[in-house]
Each structure stands twice: as structure tokens, then as C-alpha cells.
């Protein structure tokens, strides 16, 4: 374009004036392609014209400071456009879109990425990653979103690769392999950016992979540091050894740590104020806990990693020696308490909500956010669970035939009090908005040995619904407003099917979330009164976003039923098996009457 411009000018001007005109042209052109900087990302939670990170800010509060849409006018919220992800791949859309320069970048199932005009929904380009036939995602072919940095949009693929594309053209700029998909590795989480580094985890906890957090130069993809989340494994920084995670064999017997799991499959959050990245870690492998006496660090934990050094500063373990797949990857969301403390909240898959000091990880408070917890009777003063030994699935080696351990009924189910769907925090109300599920499971252990690329569970299980008398109704999902200061559930909105989409809250006093039944809903953030809903045509299992463009506030959410529930559903199937798959992006704004 520049070249052409100069050619035209050559005909009527002197060479000098052409050069001047050329220089002006490039200056004028520059702001239109403003690159995403670290400063932009650190300010993402406050800026309203863009959504640069998973979590609407790397702290993960999912709070929009926009109030143009509010409790009074939300009834006038109407669709602006809808975009189909197309093809035959209508499955499990768990993606949170990101917005920059009027462009929306949203990932779809099967490692696809779409660039759309945020205002009109017009497609700008799409990228479809070529996947090998042998990929092994445990829990559907999902992707949770992309990260933006510089002129790049970066996302992870089901065959465990990271791809960075030019935001304008959709051309691949760099691509790096995280690990071998044939060994069970995959990647579904949205990367986050901290200090010019792109931070990612790994999926594959059901295949005995090694959980870890990796930091690469976001512009080039070059590896900067690796921090394993299983004790005994060596970390690396700038190509050199950077210390073992923990102390080898301190909490793991024998060689089991070598295939120890603790996958960081939901990615992480980052708080620029502490300089720490917080990554949740999954279940230890295999599921059969009788094989691995000890706490099995750093499984089922939150690890806080200093982004500058690649070392673990603190960790907090929700479920030591996990025997129920209480895979604690859940996001750690930092916030300022009313008495001015810098804290973080986590609604763990094990049914407890933890409040920790953001800087030190010191336990402040813990309480159940689901109504039925069988495996522990409570937490001690350090937040460690008081186990009920009778509720741990039995050791198969101690059974009569050595093939099946004692079966127990446990709650929550292995799909958790909360799973991948991220919660939101409102600094206005001081509440966390947690998409919770009430369910249980029969679970028993079986003998197992590790084989590369094969499922490494050593357990059998089936999901059960709970007695409606115990939980106060015939439901599984419950959107709950939780006060981290008191541990009380302030309000709840029940849902027949399990909730699987994330949450967003706004300055306009609203909480938005989707349901498998296909609704995007809004409720009053203070009272929980439902004030708006819209049927998107397929189940919503993705978190909503909001941004402002040309003076108007927009709400967006991806729709498309899928994810882990229909794959592992057990008894729950009857609540969800009628739901149709889909794949589309919906965007809403306030209706204005025609003039």
C-alpha cells in the first residue's frame, strides 16, 4: 500500500515531497495497528475498550467497570450479531473471546481461531490447526481462549502446540511444541501474558504426564523458564538448571513422581502487584491413592511462581494425597478485602472455598461452597482437610481378589464443586460469584501400571445426583454469591443441569452467566434476582465478556454444548442428553428505538 502511494505521488511531485509524504503516511498509519503492551495488559481490568486477557485482566476477577448496561435497562439488551464457527465441528465451545482494536479473537473447538469485526461480526480470517488423528484430550476437544501480545494472538492446540498468529493477517508468526501428544499431552487453556512472557500449562493428567508451567518470550516463542509442578523434577531457566521443585521423594514414594500428573490444564492468573503467577494443579496420577502414600506435592494445589525467577514462592494444597480426582486447577483470583488486605480466592473442585494471602499464601479462611461434602469433616487452622478415612476409596490390594477396592459414595463428584468454569469477583459488592454444582459419585480403585500414552487412572466411578432433601431441591447447578469475609452464601440461582460456563460481573450491578440449557442470564449482583435471559440455541459452557465501542457497551458469549459433562455424565445424563451441540458467538447491546 505504501509502495503504491509513492508511485502515484511520483507523477506529480518532486522526489523530496514524495519522501516527506511517505514518512507522514507511515506515522499516520502506526496508531491504527497499536500493538498490545505489558502496560495495556496490566491495565486490562480497568480499560473498557478492550479485553486483552483471559479473566478480563490477568488477576481473573472477570469484572467489567462498564455500567451503561445496568439493572434498570438490562431488559432492553438485544442481540447485535451471531457468528457460526461453521463446519461439522459443533462441540464444546468453552472459549472466552479477547478484543483489541475493534477485532474479536475467539477460539473454537478442534483448535480453531476466528478473527471477527467486534462490532458487526464480520469474519476477518480464520485459522484451523491441522490435528493428528491420535490426539488424547480427556475432556472433549475444547479450547478456552487466546492471549494477545504485541501484534500477535497466541493460542494452544489439542496436539500440545502453541501457535502465534499475526492479528491482522492470521498468518502464523511462530509455533512451538509444548510436548508429545502421543504421550498424552494436550493443551486447552488460554495462555496469559506477564512481563512479556507467555505463560502456559499442560493438559493430560489422566495419562501420567508431568504438570508444569512454561514461560516463553511472547514475541518469539523462545523458552525462558519451565517450572514442574511435581516434586522431584528439575526446573530450567535460560537453558540452565534452575533447581528441583520441592524435595525428591519427600511426599512421593518410589518412582511414582516420574509420572505424577498435577497437570496445569486450566492455565493461571497473574497479579502484577505481587509479581506472582498463580497456577492451579490437577490430580496426582494415578487416581488410586493407595499406591502413593504422602501428600504428593504439588498436586491439587495452587502454586505461586515468581515470574522473574521461575521458582515456586509458595504453594497451598487443597487435597493432599487426593483419592477422588479433586483436581484443584481452579483459578486463584486476587482481590483487596474490605479491610485492605491483598488476598486471593479459590473455589476448589473439592467443595471448599479458600481465602489465602496473595503474597505469602498464608491460609486466612476456608469454608464449603457446596451443601454436601463427604470426604472431609472440615478444615484445620492451616486449611488442611480433616479427612474421613471411611470415605476414601479402598486399596484394591487389600480386597479378597485384589482386583477392586472398597467402593464409597463421595461428594462432590470428581467433576467437582466447581470445574473449569471461572468465577467472578465484584469489588462493588465484595462477593465472589461461583458457578457451583451439587453431585456425588460411586468410586473404587483398581490396580494399574503406567504405560506411555495410555489412560492412567486405576479407578472406576459413576456420577450420581444427590438426594433433593439434602441439597434443597432437584438441581445440580447453582450460581452462588459468596461473601469471602463471612463464608456465607448470600444468594443462589439454581439450575437443573450442571453449570459449566463461567461468570462475569459488572459495575452496572449485574452478574452474567450461561447455562447448558442454552440461556445467557443476568441477575442483580446484590440480590440474585434474575433480570434478563436469552436463548442462544445451544448450551453455554463459556464465560461472557463485556467491552465498549463507539460509546456503546457490548456483551459477548460463545455458545455450543459440550465439554466434560456429556462425556463423563453417568446419572447426570438424563439432565443433559437432550441438549444439542453447537458452535457460535453471540453479541448483545442495548436496543435503541429507530428515529
Amino acid at each position: 500500500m505504501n509502495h503504491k502511494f509513492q508511485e502515484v505521488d511520483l507523477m506529480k511531485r518532486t522526489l523530496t515531497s514524495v519522501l516527506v509524504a511517505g514518512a507522514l503516511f507511515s506515522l499516520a498509519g502506526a496508531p491504527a495497528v497499536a500493538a498490545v503492551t505489558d502496560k495495556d495488559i496490566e491495565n486490562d481490568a480497568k480499560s473498557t475498550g478492550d479485553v486483552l486477557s483471559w479473566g478480563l485482566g490477568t488477576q481473573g476477577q472477570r469484572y467489567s467497570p462498564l455500567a451503561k448496561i445496568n439493572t434498570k435497562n438490562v431488559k432492553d439488551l438485544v442481540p447485535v450479531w451471531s457468528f457460526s464457527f461453521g463446519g461439522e465441528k459443533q462441540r464444546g465451545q468453552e472459549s472466552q473471546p479477547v478484543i483489541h482494536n475493534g477485532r474479536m479473537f475467539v477460539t473454537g473447538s478442534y483448535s480453531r481461531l476466528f478473527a471477527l469485526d467486534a462490532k458487526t461480526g464480520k469474519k476477518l480470517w480464520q485459522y484451523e490447526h491441522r490435528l493428528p488423528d491420535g490426539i488424547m484430550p480427556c475432556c472433549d476437544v475444547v479450547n478456552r481462549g487466546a492471549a494477545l501480545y504485541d501484534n500477535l494472538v497466541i493460542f494452544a492446540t489439542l496436539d500440545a502446540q502453541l501457535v502465534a498468529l499475526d492479528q491482522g493477517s492470521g498468518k502464523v508468526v511462530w509455533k512451538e511444541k509444548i510436548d508429545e501428544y502421543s504421550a498424552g499431552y494436550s493443551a486447552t487453556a488460554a495462555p496469559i501474558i506477564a512481563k512479556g512472557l507467555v505463560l502456559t500449562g499442560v493438559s493430560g493428567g489422566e495419562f501420567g504426564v508431568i504438570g508444569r508451567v512454561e514461560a516463553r518470550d511472547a514475541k518469539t516463542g523462545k523458552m525462558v523458564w519451565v517450572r514442574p509442578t511435581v516434586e522431584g523434577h528439575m526446573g530450567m531457566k535460560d537453558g540452565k538448571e534452575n533447581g528441583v521443585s520441592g524435595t525428591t521423594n519427600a511426599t512421593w514414594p518410589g518412582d511414582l513422581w516420574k509420572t505424577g500428573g498435577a497437570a496445569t490444564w486450566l492455565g493461571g492468573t497473574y497479579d502484577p502487584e505481587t509479581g506472582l503467577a498463580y497456577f492451579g494443579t490437577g490430580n496426582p496420577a494415578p487416581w488410586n491413592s493407595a499406591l502413593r502414600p504422602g501428600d504428593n506435592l504439588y498436586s491439587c494445589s495452587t502454586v505461586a511462581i515468581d515470574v522473574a525467577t521461575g521458582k515456586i514462592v509458595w504453594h497451598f494444597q487443597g487435597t493432599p494425597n487426593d483419592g477422588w480426582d479433586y483436581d484443584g486447577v481452579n483459578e486463584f483470583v486476587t482481590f483487596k478485602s474490605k479491610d485492605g488486605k491483598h488476598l486471593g480466592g479459590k473455589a476448589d473442585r473439592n467443595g471448599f472455598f479458600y481465602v489465602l494471602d496473595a503474597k505469602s499464601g498464608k491460609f486466612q479462611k476456608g469454608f464449603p461452597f457446596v451443601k454436601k461434602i463427604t470426604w472431609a469433616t472440615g478444615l484445620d487452622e492451616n486449611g488442611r482437610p480433616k479427612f474421613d478415612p471411611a470415605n476414601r476409596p479402598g486399596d484394591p490390594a487389600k480386597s479378597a481378589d485384589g482386583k477392586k477396592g472398597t467402593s464409597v459414595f463421595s461428594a462432590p463428584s470428581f467433576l467437582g464443586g466447581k470445574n473449569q468454569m471461572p468465577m467472578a469477583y465484584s469489588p462493588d459488592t465484595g462477593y465472589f460469584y461461583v458457578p457451583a454444582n451439587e453431585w456425588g459419585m460411586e468410586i473404587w480403585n483398581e490396580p494399574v501400571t503406567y504405560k506411555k500414552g495410555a489412560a492412567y487412572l486405576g479407578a472406576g466411578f459413576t456420577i450420581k445426583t444427590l438426594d433433593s432433601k439434602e441439597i434443597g431441591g432437584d438441581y445440580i447447578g447453582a450460581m452462588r454469591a459468596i461473601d469471602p469475609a463471612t463464608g456465607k452464601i448470600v444468594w443462589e440461582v439454581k439450575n437443573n443441569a450442571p453449570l459449566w460456563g463461567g461468570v462475569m460481573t459488572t459495575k452496572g450491578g449485574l452478574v452474567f452467566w450461561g447455562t447448558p440449557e442454552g440461556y445467557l442470564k443476568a441477575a442483580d449482583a446484590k440480590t440474585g434476582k434474575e433480570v434478563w435471559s436469552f436463548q442462544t440455541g445451544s448450551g453455554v459452557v463459556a464465560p461472557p465478556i463485556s467491552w465498549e465501542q463507539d460509546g456503546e457497551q457490548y456483551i459477548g458469549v460463545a455458545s455450543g454444548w459440550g465439554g466434560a459433562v456429556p462425556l463423563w455424565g453417568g446419572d447426570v445424563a438424563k439432565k443433559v442428553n437432550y441438549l444439542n451441540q453447537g458452535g457460535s458467538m453471540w453479541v448483545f447491546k442495548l436496543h435503541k428505538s429507530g428515529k
Partner: protein
Amino acid sequence: MLRCGILVFLLWAGAVHAAAGDDPLQSPQWTDLKQRYLGAARVVFDPQVVVTGPKVAEDSMNVPVGVKISGLADVRRVLVVADLNPIVKVLEFSAQGALPVLHFRMKLQQGSPVRAMAETADGVWHVGGIWIDASGGGCTAPSVGRGTANWHETLGQVQSRVWPGEQQSRVKVNIMHPMDTGLAPGIPAFFIERLALQDATGREWMRIDTFEPVSENPVFSFDFPGTPPPGLSLVGRDNNGNRINARVAQ
């Protein structure tokens, strides 16, 4: 006055100016295609740009085509197109020390003109081409590789051979890649988009931008004046960012 200028040029170059309707191949697409790829630049049909290929393609997914440019000085780049393919652009190459000659295999969706369009330093495009008849379907069928389970293991592997000569040498390479066009239902486009022959110092001797119509597991032949430079490797990548990097056999 404009017409007069063209006439002078015509006589001087010994080539035929390409106005709409004067296409020697009588292609219904030529006017649009010229506008799209060459814009307002001067275009001449030039016998020095030679395209070779079969009269009738035996296999629409593997049509052998050769492009040879002789006698033209300062060829900047050469664009190869197939007028009637659903994806018109086949490849673009630029010889920077290798001879401006390229042999390869491509897909044809139906009988079509196949043209080479060479841009010289003066901004003029020199066009030559032939009509290749084909039973068709080459662009909308899935690649063979798509149906095999192990395409991923051989992806980007390169086989090569050199035929050295004192006057002229030939280098032939074969790259494993499905080269899916994106036009077969449910199979996204997946193709090599850039290749270069580099010597040990990193100097490029030949660069090719490739597009979807290049055949699966592409084969290319390059010609060098005299013996090929030492330490030659083939480097490149596909549209997913998968890298190709292989030493060419000596």
C-alpha cells in the same frame, strides 16, 4: 499517444502486448486474472517464457509442469497460475543464483491454461503458457495423506538428489506434506507456504512461495549454472508454522 508508446515497445521487444481479448490461450478468465495479479503493470506475451506439461493430464492430482525462462535479463520473480482452478495461484518463485527454471507437480480441477508470468526489473510482466486438459477434480479431493494414520510422523521429511554437471547441475527434492486445499469437505487448508534453498552461509539461491494447488508430497527440480553451492539446505514452513529444514544430499 499511449497506443503509439505501446507500438514502439512492441516492436522493440518482439513480444505481443497483452490487451483484453488478445490472450493466445483464449481463456475466459484472463482479463480478470491479469487485473487481479498484475494490476496496471505492462504485460507482454513472450515466447522466452516457456511452460511445459502434458497435453492431457493423466492424474489431475499430479500434473508435471515445467517453467523455463531463457534470454530475459533481470527476472525478479515468476508467478505461476492456473486460470480455471478454484485456487488460481499455484506458486511464485524467485531465482537468486539458481537458474530461472522450475519443475514441479500440481493439481488441476479441470482443463485449464497454466501460465508463468515473469516480472523483469523494468516492471514489465512477460507471460507464457499452455493449455493442459484434465479430467479434473484434483483440488477438491482429500489428500492421500489425510487418510493415513501416520502422516504426522513423516510431515516435512525431505528426500533429495543432486545430478552434478560442469556446465549445469540439477537438484531434485521431495517433501512429505498433505498439501490439503481446504476445498475437500471438513478438511482445513494445510499446505507449505514458503521454501528456500540456502547455502551454508544462509544465502538464498532460490525462494518459492507455494499455495494449495501444488501437489501432495511436492516434488521440485532446480537447475544451477555449474555445480551447486556447497552446504545446500531446503528450509521452509507450512501455514500451521511447521518447519522444514533438511540438508540437500551432495
